[in-house]
């Protein structure tokens, strides 16, 4: 069973997303939550980190994107939006779960 990584920090403020991606294996899942969802935006200085990692499945928490006014902004291709129920499903489908705090 592959790992679920969660990232809750803005890639513009901290190196957390890069720290995660440096240790995420192909086949793993990365879920962006809280301020981590800024990493899902297309066309930013931070977009390449995710856009260039094809073999990882990326998710972002919709309620956190909506709260931040990002519902209508284009996201990086291939990111799947989920809600808290989907977060639970992801945590069920993966093990262990590593939170990059």
């Amino acid at each position, binding site marked *: 069973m592959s790992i679920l990584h969660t990232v*809750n920090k803005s890639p513009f403020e901290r190196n957390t997303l890069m720290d995660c991606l440096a240790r995420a294996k192909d086949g793993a899942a990365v879920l962006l939550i809280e*301020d981590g969802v800024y990493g899902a935006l297309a066309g930013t200085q931070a977009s390449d980190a995710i856009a260039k990692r094809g073999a990882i499945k990326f998710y972002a928490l919709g*309620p956190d994107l909506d709260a931040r006014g990002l519902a209508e902004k284009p996201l990086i291709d291939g990111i799947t939006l989920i809600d*808290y*129920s989907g*977060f*639970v499903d992801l*945590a069920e489908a993966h093990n262990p779960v590593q939170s990059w705090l």
Partner: protein
Amino acid sequence: MKFGILVNEGPFTHQASDSAYHFTKAALEKGHEIVRVFFYHDGVNNANKLSEPQSDDRNLVGMWSALAEEHGVELIVCVAAALRRGIKDELLAAGFTISGLGQLVEAGIIGDRLITFGD
């Protein structure tokens, strides 16, 4: 499936307690079991019953207490972290219990997953 939840930050300052609450509630609604919610580091401040948010804001302490009441979720506050920060029995909101770090380890052993929410 059995989930253990670790909450490392207090209410309001970081979103961690909110996210943990929403995850826990969603897991319960899907029929999963919550082995325990363990409050560590500043997370112990979630148990402070004196917390009084503005009327148009969410009340996280009360939300956790309601989850304990309605679903029997065990809310454990780490004794060492709590003593340091001045969270004692007389401050505990309904549903919270102070206990040792062993309860966190046990949640990791018994649970199928341990999910951390923090800063």
